[in-house]
Every structure is written in structure tokens, then in C-alpha cells.
């Protein structure tokens, strides 16, 4: 945000002292525009249901691994491929459930949740007929769009942390914790492991920024929230399928999902940064391209609803 905008927000904060007016959220300027958006988004049942689904994934994985290994056998197919990354390590250290849960949710559950929130951002308002009232407030379209994007990004982070914290809790309850072995075979302390888990959660959240920008752009194209969500999730599935076709290997490095699983490189010792930086660069590129496309569309659009 520019200094001017920051000042504007600060200025509006003075109004916070006033008693809340008994009117609907849009006509009040309670808090900042961003704070207001956050509150609206995270108070929706839809959002809470999405977060609940995300929190359930590590619980299911944890219980499944616990039951499978209750007779003392190894988790996962011994020696073979299959199953999400790190799954064979969970029984030895509950912290690995965090990595497994993120690896399991990143390809689909997390981006789907982002697609729903991002697709709904503008189109949902238009659908409900509240977009024009939002624009009546002297905020400007660019700032509204930025606020919407910031809200979606916050949701990315919150969703990832919900998965990580749920996984950590389940892992701590069901499995032992302690020093862990990196995938390079070296030992790191539990605190170091926790630090890496947090870093991985941040990287996973950052991996979703491209999807968020794409969803926001789609959202400015239509006035139907459902259509925007369906399109975003549809694009996501299409890209994931295309990423599996070997004949397309020349263009695959430019798919936003191509380097998603590179977060696992943080568990190498020393960390292998190549794919991680590629991933972050790619996400920044998607955010810039689709963010500016969304800006071009939204600021030029006639708002009829």
C-alpha cells in the first residue's frame, strides 16, 4: 500500500471510536476497509466450512496411519512409491504429519478453497448486488481490488496454518515427537524442525498467491460468483492434468502448479533452493500478470450490480 493509502486508513481509524451504527456492514466504515473485508470473509459459514474441511484432512491422515501401523508395521507401501510425501516417517515423528498433510492438501484442497474465496471476491459482491454500494464509499476501485486481493492472500495463509496446526496437534497426540531426520539423512533438533515446518507453511501459502490472482481476475470477468468459482477450480484441475502429460514438458515449467511440491526441498540439508526460488518467482509472475489484468478489467468495467 502506498503511504497515501496508509494515511487514509489511519484517518478512517478515528471513526472506530464511534459507537457501531445498527446498520449493515457496508454502510458503516467501522475499522478499515481491509479489516472490514477480513471480518466479512471469515464470518461466512462457507469460509468456516472450508477451513473445517482443511483441518479434517490431517486428522484423517493421522488416524489412518495410526490404525495401519497399530500392529507395528511400516506406514506406506514399503519401499515403493505411492502415498503423499513423508508418510512413512509419521510413525517415528509426529512433526512429519505437518509435511504429509501439506503435501496432501496442496495439490487440490488448498487451491480449491482459495479458488472459492478468490472467485467470490468481486463476482460474489456483484451477484449479491452489494458491489455498487462498496464503490459508493470513497475508496476507489484500485484500492478495493487491492483490499480484496489482500483478503484472499490472508485466507491463503490462514488456510495453510489451519492445516499445519491441525496436523501438528494430531501428530503430537498420536505419535512421538523429538529430533528428526531430514530427507538428506542428517539429524536436526525438534526446534529446528518446528522452524522448518513454519517456513514450509509460509512457502505453501506463497505457492497459492498465483492461484489467488488468477481467481481474482476470473472474478472480475463475470457477475456470477458460482461461475467464477467453477472457472477457477476448473482451470486448476485442467492445469494439474496438463502437468501430468509428458509430451507437454516444454511448457510445464510455466504452469503455476508445477513447482508446488518443491516445499519439500526445505527438508533437505543443506536446503536445495533452485526449485523453491523458481516456484516463488513463478507465483510472483502470475500475481503480477493476473493482478494487473484484474485491475485493467475491474477499473474499466461498468458496475451494474
Amino acid at each position, binding site marked *: 500500500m502506498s503511504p497515501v493509502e496508509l494515511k487514509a486508513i489511519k484517518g478512517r481509524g478515528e471513526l472506530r471510536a464511534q459507537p457501531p451504527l445498527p446498520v449493515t456492514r457496508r454502510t458503516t466504515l467501522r475499522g478499515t476497509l481491509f479489516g472490514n473485508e477480513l471480518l466479512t470473509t471469515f464470518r461466512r459459514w462457507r469460509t468456516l466450512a472450508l477451513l473445517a474441511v482443511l483441518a479434517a484432512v490431517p486428522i484423517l491422515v493421522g488416524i489412518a496411519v495410526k490404525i495401519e501401523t497399530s500392529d507395528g508395521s511400516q506406514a506406506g507401501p514399503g519401499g515403493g512409491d505411492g502415498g503423499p510425501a513423508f508418510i512413512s516417517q509419521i510413525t517415528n515423528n509426529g512433526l512429519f504429519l505437518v509435511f504429509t498433510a501439506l503435501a496432501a492438501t496442496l495439490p487440490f484442497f488448498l487451491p480449491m478453497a482459495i479458488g472459492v474465496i478468490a472467485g467470490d471476491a468481486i463476482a460474489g459482491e456483484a451477484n449479491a448486488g452489494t458491489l455498487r454500494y462498496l464503490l459508493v464509499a470513497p475508496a476507489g476501485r484500485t484500492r478495493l481490488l487491492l483490499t480484496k486481493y489482500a483478503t484472499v492472500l490472508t485466507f491463503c495463509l490462514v488456510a495453510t496454518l489451519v492445516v499445519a496446526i491441525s496436523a501438528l496437534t494430531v501428530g503430537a497426540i498420536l505419535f*512421538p515427537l523429538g529430533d528428526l531426520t531430514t530427507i538428506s539423512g542428517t539429524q536436526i533438533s525438534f526446534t529446528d524442525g518446528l522452524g522448518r515446518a513454519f517456513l514450509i507453511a509460509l512457502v505453501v501459502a506463497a505457492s497459492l498467491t498465483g492461484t489467488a490472482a488468477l481467481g481474482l481476475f476470473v472474478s472480475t470477468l463475470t*457477475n456470477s460468483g458460482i461461475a467464477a468459482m467453477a472457472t477457477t477450480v476448473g482451470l486448476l484441475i485442467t492445469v494439474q492434468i496438463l502437468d501430468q502429460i509428458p509430451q507437454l514438458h516444454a511448457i510445464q515449467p510455466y504452469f503455476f502448479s508445477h513447482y508446488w511440491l518443491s516445499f519439500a526441498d526445505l527438508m*533437505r540439508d543443506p536446503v*536445495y533452493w533452485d526449485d523453491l526460488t523458481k516456484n516463488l518467482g513463478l507465483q510472483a*509472475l502470475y500475481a503480477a500478470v493476473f493482478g494487473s489484468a484484474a485491475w485493467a478489467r475491474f477499473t474499466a468495467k461498468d458496475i451494474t450490480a
Partner: protein
Amino acid sequence: MAPYESDDSTSAGEADDLHPGRRKAARYVVPVAVVGVAAATIGLVPALADSGDPDLPKISAQQLIEKIAKSDVQQMSGTVKVTTDLGLPDLGGLESSLTSGAARGSGDGSSADPSTKLTELATGTHTLRVAADGPDKQKLSLLENAAEYSLIHNGKDVWGYDSQSNEVYHSTVADSADAKQKQDETPATPDQLAKDALKAVDDTTSVTVQGTAQVAGRDAYRLVIKPKDSGSTVGQITVAVDSRTGLPLKFTLTPASGGAAVIDAGFTQISFSKPSASTFDFKTPKGAKVTEDDRSDHADGSLKGADKGAKSDEDLGKGLDGLNVIGEGWDSIATFDTGGQGVPSGSEAGGGAFGGFLDSLGDKVSGKFGSGTIFKTRLINALITDDGKVYVGAVDKAALVKAANAG
């Protein structure tokens, strides 16, 4: 996108007033410009970075080879990218299940066994990490998707760790001479590949220094090794040698038929500082399945061999009875008699899908020797005659037929 009302009304608005419409369209220049800048950056930055081959004092091939021989890099760590393209069909998962199945069959079930893992390098692109600190501490890691295979040599112990399956392979070496040998078995470091290639230097080979290159940010000489005979499928071998330490940094083998390199192994990043000691520390992780290797004691191994991994070696040995090598240098062809029937052609194999499959793998040839089938890859060709003789070499089809005619 779905035709919703606002889309229509936008165009209606544009029709009313052309000027604002054009201004609206102008906004789309921004995302297009971002795409353009990104594309230009992706296209230009590597080109700019590559532009200058370093200026190094002239050096003869002899001096350069000596430099390599004298090279004594004790401490280093780096990332190596290995691309192998033998022209074999990419069997993907099937291949890995075949190789692991084969390893199982020979008695040792551990996916952490080095020989199982290193066969994976035969196709595709792989990223490896190497680290070394003196003769007693080395580490080689094969980077996989969200997993890693590490081979750690620290003092007396050699550990193999497969993080995917959480399996550990352990063997001991008597002293560092043995460890050296263990290292020799891993073919992928540029250093080793270069030394192997230089062994083949004789009358049949031309070795020259051709220009310089930048490898992993270091200035390097390019040593070009070419077979003098025309029958070889090897086009040329290029070794990039670090100008300061004499360490080979990149090894490229291009086939005579042209196209992409068959083997391309090179450092993408290298550092000559001492790797941290923890790199070589390996403690068996909790819950890991450990396979102790009793083959390391070879005197004993021959006894136990019957039910252990040596069994397959024995079979192989039987198959290689009567192995002859025809010719020398690059054109040498290995030949042996399987005593069998050769490869049945499509019709003999009962026709149908299986016969067609066999025929599609090889080309039928005939000559004075009779007839046979040639199996081709981009580097190694093999001729199996119908009376069961096999000729294998890094030579072209004509040379194989000639050898068969002579033999």
C-alpha cells in the same frame, strides 16, 4: 467467459462513446507488458549470462590432462545435473518397478541398496549433490520428488538412506583404499567420467583443447576427445576442466548421429570450501528398516553368494562364457555365443501381438553370416544372429554386420 449482463452492457457503453472505450482497452497493455517483460527476461538473461566465454591462457591437451591428473581437490560440495538419453523408450514407473523387482529377485529387498538406486540414473534427468571432505568422508545424494537417496561414506561406514521408504543400507569398509573403490563404482561424478574417458586415449583417439567455457560460474577449458575411426557411434566427448583446480566440471558425450547428448553430467553449482561436518554424520532414524550388507566381506561372500545377490552375477557370468572382443579402441565389438536360437522373428514367436512387438524392437539384417536382428540405441548397438551369436559395441550397424561376416 460466461455471458453475463455486465459484459454486454460494457460493450454497449463502448459503442456509445468510442474514446473512453479505447482508454479502457489501453489498461490491458499493463498485463500484456508484464508478460512481455517476463518472457524477455526468461529468454535474455541466460543468453546474456552465457555470452562471454572466459579468456584463459592457451594450454596444450597434454598439460590439461596432467592438470586433471594432478588435481587434488579434497574438500568440495556441489550440485550435479545428469541427463542420460540413450534413446531407450521411457518406461517411467514400469522401469523402476522392474529394476526394484529385479533387485528383490536377487535376494536383497532393500530399496536403500546403492546398486538398486544407481540404475535409476540410466535414463532421464537427475539432480545429484556431492560433498567430500578428505578421503574418509564423502556423500552422494540423489534428489527425488520430496525424497532423497543418500550414500554416505564416513570413516569405516557406508550408509545408504532412502528417505521415501525410510530404509537404511549399511556396510563397512576396511580402509580408505576400499572406500576409494566404492567411490569408483559410482559412475556419475564428472571427475570419474573424465578419468575413464582418458583411459581410452591411444592411437585411435584425438584429444584437443577447444576453447573455454563457464561451468557452475567457474572458468573452464574444454577438452575434446574424438574417435578417429568412423565406425563408432560416439561423436565426441567434451570435458570441461576447471582452470584453477583441474577438477573436471562437466562431461558431455554426443553421438555421431548428432542430436542431444547421450550423457551430460555437469556441476551446476560448486564450492571448494569445507562442507559442514554434520553433512557426513548419519544416525539411523527411528523406525527405519536397516539392511546390513554382508557382501562387503568378499571372501565370505562367495560362499553365501548362492542365496544372495551374487546369484545373478553367477548367471551373468555363465551367459558371458566365451566372451571375445574384436577390434580395439572405439570400434571394439564384444561378441559371445548364447548357444541358443537367437531372437525369434514375429512369425516364429507365434505371430500376433507379441511377435509384432519383438519385430518392432529390432531391425532385420542379413549378410554372409546369415540373418539376424539389430537392436539400436543412440550409443550401443547389438546384433543377435539367428544362430544365437551376439555382437555388441558402440559402433554403427555396418560395423556390426562386418564383424559378424568376418566372425
